[in-house]
């Protein structure tokens, strides 16, 4: 599904190398987790894959189902099936959540040469999916993320994911700022989307999210590289011993 080879990235504004050769392959239907200390490059990886400005790729490649992601505009990557759940979802006053969702869904359908959904069809689907995530009609009507609590914002991210039905989902610290109940709700939303044709990359600091979204593979990232890869037990090791042991081991 996603194949990253030797990816090297630096910040455009300053001469600072963030990613120093990331290799990562995620097969279809699998859930991979990336853990790592602050500043290891986890969020940068998610931004570079989704096409945010401000980063310069200095080497390597990233393909989604054989297509070169790095050559596409952010919206083309989305239409190709990539989705990033933001760590800090952006507030957009004056644009209704529903309008935003419908614009996004139809823009992607159009880009893929599919018919746009009618207002009625769209409403039916969105109501159904919103219900599962305990998103009420009021939240759908309100401007995008404006006045939403931390938990509501993250649930709204998962609703977008559910509506857009991407192939490759990246969750950037989706657990940050969530209490235990909110985290469970979000994890249930994600788990409901797990399928053979859909892969996940879950970026997190903590093991606890991985109790709810069970990964197939866990990677440890440090200093711009993936330094260790293992099964779910690797996340437990981090939880118990911190990163220091692993980092000294691979140093």
């Amino acid at each position, binding site marked *: 599904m996603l194949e990253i080879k030797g990816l090297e990235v630096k910040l455009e504004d300053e001469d600072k190398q963030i990613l120093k050769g990331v290799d990562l392959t995620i097969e279809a239907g699998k859930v991979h987790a990336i853990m790592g200390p602050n500043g290891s490059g986890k969020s940068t990886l998610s931004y570079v894959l*989704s096409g945010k*400005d401000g980063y310069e790729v200095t080497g390597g490649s990233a393909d989604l189902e054989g297509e070169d992601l790095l050559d596409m505009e*952010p*919206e083309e*990557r989305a239409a190709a099936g990539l989705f990033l759940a933001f760590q800090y979802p952006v507030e957009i006053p*004056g*644009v209704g959540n529903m309008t*935003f969702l419908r614009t*996004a869904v139809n*823009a992607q359908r159009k880009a893929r040469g599919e018919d746009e959904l009618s207002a009625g069809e769209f409403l039916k689907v969105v109501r159904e999916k919103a219900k599962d995530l305990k998103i009420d009609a009021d939240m759908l009507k309100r401007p995008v993320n404006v006045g939403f609590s931390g938990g509501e914002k993250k649930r709204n991210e998962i609703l977008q994911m559910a509506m857009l039905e991407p192939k490759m989902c990246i969750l950037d610290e989706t657990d940050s700022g969530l209490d235990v109940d909110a985290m469970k709700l979000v994890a249930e939303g994600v788990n409901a989307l797990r399928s053979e044709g859909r892969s996940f990359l879950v970026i997190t600091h903590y093991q606890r999210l991985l109790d709810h979204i069970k990964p197939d593979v866990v990677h440890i990232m440090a200093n711009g590289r993936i330094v260790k890869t293992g099964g779910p037990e690797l996340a437990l090791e981090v939880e118990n011993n911190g990163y220091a042991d692993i980092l000294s081991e691979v140093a």
Partner: protein
Amino acid sequence: MALAELKLAATQSRLNSMVMPDGLNIQRADALDRVVTMGLSDRRDEYWKYTNPSSLTQPEPVPAALFHNDEGPLFTDVDRVKIVFVDGVFDPDASDDLSCEGVEIARLSDVTDGWASELYGTLEVNGQTPVARPLAALNTAFATDGVAIRVTGKAAKPINLIYLHKDVVSDAILHHVIRVDEGAEMTLLETGPAAARFNKVLEVDIADNGKFHHVAAQGRDHERRAVTHCFARIAKESVFKSFTLTVNGVLTRNECILDIVGDDAVAHVAGACVGDGRDFHHDDTVFITHDGLNGESRQVFKKVLRNGATGVFQGKILVKEGAQKTDGYQISQSLLLDGDSQFLAKPELEIYADDVACSHGSTSGAIDEDALFYLQSRGVPANIATDLLTLSFLAEALSEIDNDDLAEELRDRLESWLSRRS
């Protein structure tokens, strides 16, 4: 020639080309005296520092190409009384019967005496101090027509003044007077470009506990020019709310002069403007005077500017001595879609009472990169994302319109205009 002589010569040259209509002769003669005394505005006037008035004051209007409107008129779903002016000339065939429960409507050209003749020019005169507004006095002297509306109860329908532009060199001068009686209420809609050059004055006198709602859309003709003045006297516990949408037009100067003269009165004025190109110049000039207790005023102006367009905002709140507990709010913001466009803002507060809350703010900014990326990451192409964020920017001004249906219709129009461009 000295500057004063230059101004006098320019004023005479303009006046020479004009013919004073018959009727309201005393008011017109007085107004003409004011014009001659003040002299017409020119670039050297402090009040016209950011906007060049020469095309508004020169003898002949600059021709303005007609605009083919392919989307039908606004507010067709609103049950309203239509009053149509074509290039400033009343069109009885296109207009509805001028009767409506709660209001008495007459044409200005039929006014000979009574409340309308007493009001005509009165608020304009009051609005000449402390700042001279010669183009408004010129209007009072030479207005060819307009409407006189007496609101005696709750108006059964909105009154829609529809201004059509069909002559490339038309030069329209219209003057409307509105008197809202005690406890009465009306909504005035104004739509369309009116003429190649349009000079409009609206005088609104609101008695105690009266309500006046105003929504205007100035039409999309690219080359039209307009100077408008709205003078309002707002009495005890009464409400004045005005919103203007401006899209296109090479030159627009909208002046709003509001006098809160009674206690517990409310005055809101708002505007949204979308301008494209080096030729686009849009100026909102507002002067709100608080002379009552517990007065509330709001000014909310948003401008979207691109390709070298210019936006101007001059907004003043004057709180007179004794106007305690005044709550004045003013915000003017521009969204600059490129580095060539500019926004010039002059917010002013002048306060002589010691127990008031007045705030003002002005910002200029570009499209928020984070929001743009957020939308793009959901698959929304950059141009559509920019339109959405532009609407998002204008939303605060549109939300100043009390009537949700009217606001929604203007929002939908804006959305389709923006998407058509991109």
